[in-house]
């Protein structure tokens, strides 16, 4: 709680009037002093009451990327039975904005508003509380307090322009090697079910015969497979690691946008081949939270498959064993 610029002047005026009142003993000046004091007391009391029993809920209705402005819906709930809350400004910590202002939230109701937010880092943001601020009813005292926040936000890594680094990924090199002349809906083969496969592709007859789930694979899928092997094993340079995460996420985003079936292999995480928006989000979910690991325990049943992009932490990385199997190799320090 602090006095605003106007509040400081008002307070000073109150002290001077107080001095005049006690000096003269004039009851009419006491009357004016009483008015001034009542303003200060009301500022405090109404302000405290105004910000009492408020809660926030934050939700995510669209992907949020680091270093990109997104509009996050924030819901302010006024749990007071009948008293409205006025002029509540919700400040999103660490963000370059003046928050969002809720001019009025009637008693026992809630109001939502989207706040433009630009997160600097990826990760899961569980805020616990947001600062809320108000100067209601006057402009004399400003109060800032923490308001509990329900919900959280998953911030995906920064998506960068990788055209310079992968100028021909979607173009030629691998297509020459992998794209067959078969049409895209032509049946290619039956293979074992892998984590992430579409259940609708299960070949029930073959599964019954083998006792294992078997799926049908089509020519298009076979021809447009991409594997991203991301090295998150004992990263040394945090900044370089973040850049490599951003690069990997950007690569996945671009490849899926171009219709590729992308698989992600990292320490302890595997996202099997898949494509489409939902599949991209699965990969980005991993990248949003990925951290360095001590050992390579990739749950992949097989090694790199299809066109493979290997993103390594350093030249000494144990994952260099995939170097020979990879079509493209990137080092974090170069990104």
């Amino acid at each position: 709680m602090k006095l605003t610029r106007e509040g400081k002047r008002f307070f000073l005026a109150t002290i001077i009037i107080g001095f005049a009142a006690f000096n003269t003993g004039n009851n009419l000046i006491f009357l004016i002093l009483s008015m001034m004091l009542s303003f200060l007391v009301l500022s405090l009391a109404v302000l405290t009451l105004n910000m009492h029993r408020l809660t926030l809920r934050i939700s995510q209705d669209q992907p949020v990327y680091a270093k990109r402005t997104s509009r996050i819906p924030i819901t302010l709930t006024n749990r007071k039975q009948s008293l409205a809350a006025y002029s509540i400004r919700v400040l999103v910590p660490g963000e370059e904005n003046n928050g969002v202002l809720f001019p009025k939230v009637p008693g026992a109701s809630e109001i939502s508003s989207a706040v433009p937010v630009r997160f600097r880092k990826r990760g899961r943001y569980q805020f616990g509380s947001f600062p809320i601020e108000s100067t209601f009813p006057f402009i004399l005292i400003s109060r800032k307090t923490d308001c509990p926040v329900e919900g959280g936000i998953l911030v995906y890594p920064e998506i960068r322009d990788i055209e310079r680094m992968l100028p021909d990924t979607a173009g030629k090199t691998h297509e020459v090697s992998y794209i067959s002349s078969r049409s895209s809906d032509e049946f290619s083969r039956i293979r074992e079910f892998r984590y992430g496969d579409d259940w609708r592709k299960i070949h029930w007859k073959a599964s019954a015969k083998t006792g294992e789930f078997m799926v049908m694979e089509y020519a298009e899928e076979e021809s447009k497979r991409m594997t991203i092997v991301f090295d998150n094993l004992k990263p040394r340079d945090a900044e370089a690691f973040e850049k490599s995460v951003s690069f990997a996420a950007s690569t996945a985003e671009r490849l899926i946008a171009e219709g590729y079936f992308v698989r992600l292999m990292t320490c302890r995480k595997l996202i099997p081949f898949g494509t489409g928006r939902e599949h991209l989000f699965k990969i980005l979910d991993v990248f949003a939270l990925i951290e360095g690991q001590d050992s390579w325990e990739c749950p992949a049943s097989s090694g790199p498959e299809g066109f493979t992009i290997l993103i390594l932490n350093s030249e000494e990385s144990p994952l260099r064993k995939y170097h020979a199997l990879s079509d493209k190799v990137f080092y974090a320090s170069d990104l």
Partner: protein
Amino acid sequence: MPQIYKLLTAILAFAGCISLVITGEINPFMMITGIGLFPGYYRFLRGMAPAAKWAVSSFSFLTLIVFFFDSFVISNDSFLGVAHLTITFQVIKSFDLKEPWDHLQVYFMALLQLIVASELTNSIAFGIIFLLFLVAFVSAMVLSHFVKEGTTGKVSVCAPVFAISVLALFFTFLFFVALPRVSGKIWGKSHIKSIKTVGFSERVDFGSFGDIKADPAVIMRIELSAAAGRPCYWRGMSLNYFDGTSWTNTLEKDRIYKDGELFLIRPFTKESAIVQRIFLEPMDNEVLFGMSDIAAVESAGYSMTTDSAHSLFLPFKKGKRFNYLAYSNRDSIPVAENNLQRYLQLPPGMEAISRLAIDITNPGDSTDQKAQKIERYLMRNYSYSLSVPQPPEGMSPIDDFLFNTRKGYCEHYATAMVLMLRTLGIPARIVTGFFGGETNDYGQYIIVRQSNAHSWIEADIDGIWKRFDPTPPVSEDVTSGISLFLDMIRMKWERYIVAFSLFDQREIARFVSLPFRLPSMPEMKSLRGTVLVIVFALPAGLVLVWVIMKSLRWKRYGLVTGYYLRVRDLVRKRGGAITPFSTPAEVSSEAVRTGMGGRVSEFINIYEEHRFGGKNMTEEARANYKELFREISN
């Protein structure tokens, strides 16, 4: 900016100026500038552009020059000079209203005007304006908030304005009752004009009562216990020495102090005493009035004086309203003086009066019979008149009254009777005070006016001071019902607001604490100066020093760097890791980290452009820079 907000600013500016005008103390010539408020606010309400800056500055400068001239020459009173100055500044400001801060300046100026007015008047009109001001001020302040937030029009402000106005009234009342009334009087003098009275000074010129008998100004209002008879004599003081043209009080005064809550003059019992709560208007004398014989007084104050004639005096002139409870005994004043010769003093040339006294009375009459005969004689054979011509050259005014004109007013009758009794060897003295008064049935109190001023006599009749009033009765003007009703409101205003005192606070505290048996309020006498200094002067001095130091601290860096350093300071205060070596970029990034928003980055960009980019700051950029600072600091 909503029209209602503009209108409220206009109302507050007008309220401030009107509060000064109603005091009747403002020089009409100096008030002329106030007319400028009409075009000023007309332009403002119609949304016309503010006046040019040079014009505002020039007029402001001119006003300051006029202020000094006014304070030392025209009004010869700096207090009135300030009153005139604020009116002119209100007018200038009405032509220069741009942002919400300007409106706040208008409110503060109106507040100052109210304070000045409160020192110049106690009238109920001030109370009405104050009430209007309070409601408008609350509304304007709430609207200021919404204007600042940019949400006017999006939110209905009626409900919060109404609720907060009611709360503000309630808290104002609460504070008014609770704030301790300890008057320090460290500096300044009261500017309330007191009523000029006659007959209550140590020396009273004969014939002076005639000038005030036509004055309807209210002198006091009295709530009287039902047991008292009517009409009443409100005894003031006695005069014992007459030199032929003037009366003088030559009695010595003794100081008396409070005994508990009472100034005890002589023994009495509360049950049998006549209780009078008296509200005196500001007067130019120290005399306390009451029904004879006042035995005790309950009031604020720490001492008073009394003389052997049982007159009571305050240690100061009643420059302010004063209220007290007087307890009067029903029995007459016993003669307890050794020196009765002073009541037999006669000026030279009393032979004719002596003969008249002897003619009126019989030698065998008792003193009481003699006094009654003289009283009756004067009452029957002389007529009451306020238009008494000057006596012929060489004739004393009392001889002129008794033997020539045979008409006069109370002073003539009382003086004539005192002199006649003294020529007969009966000690007598003249008493000044008020007689009668008008009963206001609306408020159950008596209004005593200047026109009720009266003089009568007290004579030593068998060891007691007996009152005689030889003035024939005069019919009084009847006041209309509306006037009485208005006077009742005025009485309430004066009783509960203007004259509210520590005494009343004690009564309230006593009433409130009754069921809880709380200790009574402490005596504030010994503390009052210290309380005032500790509570106000010391913090105010510290705040002043702090403001000056702060202002000087930033000023030496110049505007651009000074404001930047302040922003840096703000970021540090909000938890930013700022060291003296932090670069602007680091400050910017810390500001973002601590949630101060992008305005800081914008501010720092402007700072860098002008600090290091070799750019000169234009007037507009300067204003923008300052505005950004304000936004950040808020």
